[in-house]
């Protein structure tokens, strides 16, 4: 309970579909058992098709998301192009490893589409930047076990955007309902080639 990763609570999940990806997070911000806010999104956008989910210590979530805002802005100015999801993931990895002996207490998740091939891309990280390239789904936060159970049984290959939305939403909602530190609504992003759909899920408010 006193682990920095589980003081504020929160959950995030990303999934691969057919020519699309999805990323979703809960909205709770807490201090141990006390809920402080029910509007604390944990997903940030860094390009047309690049999304980062951050769970863990809320102060680090805010700081790290701003740090990557700065780094990605600098990248865009310098290179006169948007950052690709894979390049962004490597930036996340190297930035986290810079703090090898005093890490940010966050578990990032990246989701996006490769701008060149349109291929879905997701990956997750530990707090010091080791990348987990997954072909199916990535989970992070205080509800990881529940999310693993849900995703492992609900996910299947080549889901279309609508099916993927249903799958990721059910996975997240049912997982956070079994985690006292997560929940209070959710944000879901469905990322397609020329379209990003963001939906707000109400979920249980307890």
């Amino acid at each position, binding site marked *: 309970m006193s682990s920095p990763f589980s003081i504020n609570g929160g959950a995030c999940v990303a999934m691969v579909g057919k020519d699309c990806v999805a990323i979703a997070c809960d909205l709770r911000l807490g201090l141990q058992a006390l809920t402080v806010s029910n509007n604390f999104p944990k997903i940030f956008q860094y390009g047309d098709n690049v999304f980062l989910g951050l769970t863990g210590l809320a102060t680090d979530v805010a700081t790290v998301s701003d740090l990557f805002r700065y780094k990605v802005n600098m990248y865009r100015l310098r290179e006169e192009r948007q950052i690709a999801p894979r390049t962004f993931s490597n930036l996340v990895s190297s930035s986290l490893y810079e703090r090898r002996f005093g890490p940010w207490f966050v578990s990032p998740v990246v989701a996006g589409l490769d*701008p*060149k091939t349109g291929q879905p891309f997701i990956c997750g990280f530990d707090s010091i930047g080791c990348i987990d390239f997954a072909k199916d789904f990535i989970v992070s936060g205080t509800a990881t076990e529940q999310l693993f159970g849900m995703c492992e049984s609900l996910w299947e290959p080549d889901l279309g955007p609508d099916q993927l939305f249903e799958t990721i939403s059910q996975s997240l909602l049912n997982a956070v309902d079994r985690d006292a530190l997560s929940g209070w609504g959710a944000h879901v992003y469905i990322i397609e080639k020329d379209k990003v759909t963001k939906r707000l899920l109400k979920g249980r408010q307890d």
Partner: protein
Amino acid sequence: MADRYSFSLTTFSPSGKLVQIEYALNAVNQGVTALGIKATNGIVLATEKKSSSPLADPSSLSKISLITPNIGMVYSGMGPDYRVLVDRARKVSHTGYKRIYNEYPPTRILVQDVARVMQEATQSGGVRPYGVSLLIAGWDEGILPEEEIEAKEGEEGKKLSGKTGGILKGGPMLYQVDPSGSYFPWKATAIGKSATTAKTFLEKRYTEGLELEDAVHIALLTLKETIEGEMNGETIEIGIVGPPAHHLLGVEGVEGAVGPRFRKLTPQEIEDYLTNL
């Protein structure tokens, strides 16, 4: 104590010129000619290997250098200064890019980094500008999907070839960097002693939609116009940016591994081109 009272040697003259930089350009203009030609599917860099003595072993001399697997460069001017810049370019392409993004820098980014190194030498205390101009040639992967590139080219009604270079589309890029730190993209250019003659020649021979093989041919013809000594595989040096050279990878069967696009031609390959000239 030297660092406390060190002043920049490059200072403005009353007329607004930085004469140190002009001196550096003079050094470049006394250097052996080097040239670069961009084709649709690659680039050629070429220069003469001039040794001061007939006793020197030409095979140990190398003026064209590999910076990243897809980027190489050549110089005109002072050899020792060039080697320092090669070291810096190789270093900065890793520390400033590969170690951060796990991919090699696009050509323009590397050019900017090298240009910054050269500019800093014009404004820092206790140093002199680098006495070289560089030709940097590289291939960028690009991030746009293929069909989008074709659509864009259709609009502009320009080239029929797939790529024209640059960070977005990908393809070959050729830059010149000067001692002042300024840099220019070129379709074809030359630096050094006979740069003017060579450039006039290139203007005549260069056409849009050039293929790499034609470019190598033109490069050799241009070099022939300006060369002082004999022309053979030992006395000239050629580097090309072309299709991935899988035979240089050193490994086989590794998924996703792509060979380097920049490679130097062997004396034998150069001889072959020369016989067909």
